[in-house]
């Protein structure tokens, strides 16, 4: 019950941050409110018992990815006047209706999950004995069953690095 209340508080904080990121005119404020969403989500991860992923969420998402966004916002010198205002009429209500319908559809589809049994009954074991979310099970799986995808991921990072530096370099003589 305590977990549910805490999840509600941080979840609503994350949702408010996301909503502000969608409606705010100034791109810097939009990015900063998305930082708020990421930190709220990290708190949700902590509540779910995944401390490691929560820490990674704060360090990588809030600390690295969104700061890169901030850098680019300042680099291209985007002021609020450059951002088109939210559209009016059908162009505004159409996407809102679509999103609300999507949200309702997902939530209604989730009702079937309520019929699932509690995992204690399935696995015949108290779930707290699994040390979920701590580093040992994640590391063990990462370097045994998922070693090949892990290496592929490093190749992807290198390719992204090279691609990004090729994309933004100034061409001379073209």
């Amino acid at each position, binding site marked *: 019950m305590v*977990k549910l209340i805490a999840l509600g508080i941080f*979840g609503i904080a*994350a949702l408010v941050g*996301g*909503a502000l*990121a*969608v409606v705010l005119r100034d*791109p810097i404020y*939009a990015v900063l409110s*998305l930082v708020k*969403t*990421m930190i709220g*989500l990290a708190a*949700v*991860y902590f509540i*779910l*018992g995944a401390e490691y*992923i929560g820490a*990674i*969420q704060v360090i*990588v*998402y809030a600390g690295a*990815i969104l700061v*890169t*966004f901030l850098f*680019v916002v300042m680099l*291209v010198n*985007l002021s609020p006047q*450059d*951002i088109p205002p*939210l559209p009016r009429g059908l162009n*505004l209500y159409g*996407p809102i209706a*679509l*999103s609300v319908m*999507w*949200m309702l559809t*997902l*939530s209604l589809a*989730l009702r079937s*999950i*309520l019929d*699932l049994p509690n*995992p204690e009954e399935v*696995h015949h074991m108290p*779930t707290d004995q699994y040390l*979920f979310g701590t580093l040992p*099970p994640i590391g063990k*799986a*990462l370097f045994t069953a*998922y070693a090949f995808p892990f290496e592929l*991921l490093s190749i*992807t*990072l290198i*390719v992204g*690095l090279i*691609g*990004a530096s090729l*994309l*933004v370099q100034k061409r001379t003589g073209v």
Partner: protein
Amino acid sequence: MKVELLYATLTLAAGLFSLGLLGLLLRRNILLAFLSIELMLNAANLNFLAFSRYHNEPTGAIFVLFGICLAAVEAVIGLGLVVRVFRMHQDLGYTNLSALRW
């Protein structure tokens, strides 16, 4: 983990995904569209982690790790494109992306 907590988490993820979709449709700006995509990626991560916790398997958590890494790569490439398009057009409207065709 109880089913109610799973349900609450999945509802939160659905809300975040809808907000991301709304932002992608409403904001006519490449940079803010990337922000919305980040929001949707996080909603997917949250779903992975909720089910991973429910079944007490680390597989979902590993998918989240991979997803975060890929989101970083996607952000870097996307922001490179943003800088490039801005240099060409001094503007970040969606239509400027048509310069990427050949």
